[in-house]
């Protein structure tokens, strides 16, 4: 470790401890939304600063510095997702085999059709829900039930709005795998919100 040197011009450049004060909260928020776990989010923020320190760049403006750090953080988050996607748990398998079998006609003439009483219901004034904090809480809880890698895919594709090819490249998965995961995610979210929010609004 190097001793503090007051004449060192580096103090005029990006001081890593100042980063923590200026950008720490923002990075933490970005990480928390995607990783859903405060501990993991803190770790990701720390790794980001460490990587930034090694990168050793300096910036003129705060906003350039911020977007540079956010870029590093997103890479860290993707590393985490890639690691997570190698581990498939039993609950994940349940999630994949289900596909709402109980809502479609199992056999006979109408096979694969919605069982009418259990098909998608009308969502009256859906747009107004967006103003309710409780709606968002329900949304969060529903998304929280998705297996981690499915939630990761949904976040990158729908929340961040990356295109399919980018998501596949980031997570190292095939496109057909991506489509299946997104289909399951949307189906599960729709059902969960219908049961826990829209169905209770009448």
């Amino acid at each position, binding site marked *: *470790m*190097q001793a503090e040197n007051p004449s060192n011009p580096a103090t005029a450049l990006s001081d*890593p*401890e100042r980063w*923590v*004060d200026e950008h*720490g*909260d923002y990075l*933490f*928020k970005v990480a*928390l*939304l995607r990783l859903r776990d*405060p501990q993991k989010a*803190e770790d990701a*923020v*720390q790794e980001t*600063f*460490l990587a930034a*320190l090694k990168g050793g760049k300096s910036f003129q403006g705060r906003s350039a510095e911020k977007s540079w750090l956010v870029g590093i953080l997103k890479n860290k988050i993707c590393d985490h997702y890639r690691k997570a996607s190698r581990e498939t748990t039993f609950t994940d398998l349940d999630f994949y085999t289900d*596909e709402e079998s109980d809502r*479609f006609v199992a056999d006979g003439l*109408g*096979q*694969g*059709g*919605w069982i*009418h009483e259990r*098909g*998608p*219901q*009308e*969502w009256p004034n*859906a747009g107004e829900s*967006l103003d309710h*904090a409780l709606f*968002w*809480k329900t*949304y*969060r809880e529903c*998304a929280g039930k998705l297996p981690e890698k499915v939630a990761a895919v949904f976040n990158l*594709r*729908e*929340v961040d*709005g990356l295109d*399919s090819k980018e998501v596949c490249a980031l997570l190292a998965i095939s*496109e057909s795998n*991506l*489509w299946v995961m*997104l*289909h399951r995610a*949307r*189906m599960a*979210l*729709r059902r969960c*919100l*219908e049961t826990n929010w829209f169905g209770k609004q009448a």
Partner: protein
Amino acid sequence: MNFWQKLKSDGAALLPNCREATRAQSERLDRPLPRTTRIGLWLHLLLCRWCRRYGTQIRFLGRAAHDHQDELAGAAPTTLSVEARQRIKQRLHEEK
């Protein structure tokens, strides 16, 4: 693929059931669908209000999440705790 096999697979794509139509409606958001699948979905949606609703709802949920990221993130602790802040600074200091 011989003629009969092709006819059979095109026929299946042109007459999807609801289970298949829900999948196609999701995939349509992520990639351009093959032509027969697209036509089949269109025909299905003309006749099936359940699937029309389904499509509207999944698009609504996706757009809502994209447009309201702050609400989705919620009011939960969105700042680093004092301890975390200290720990990270300490760690950075060691690394310097």
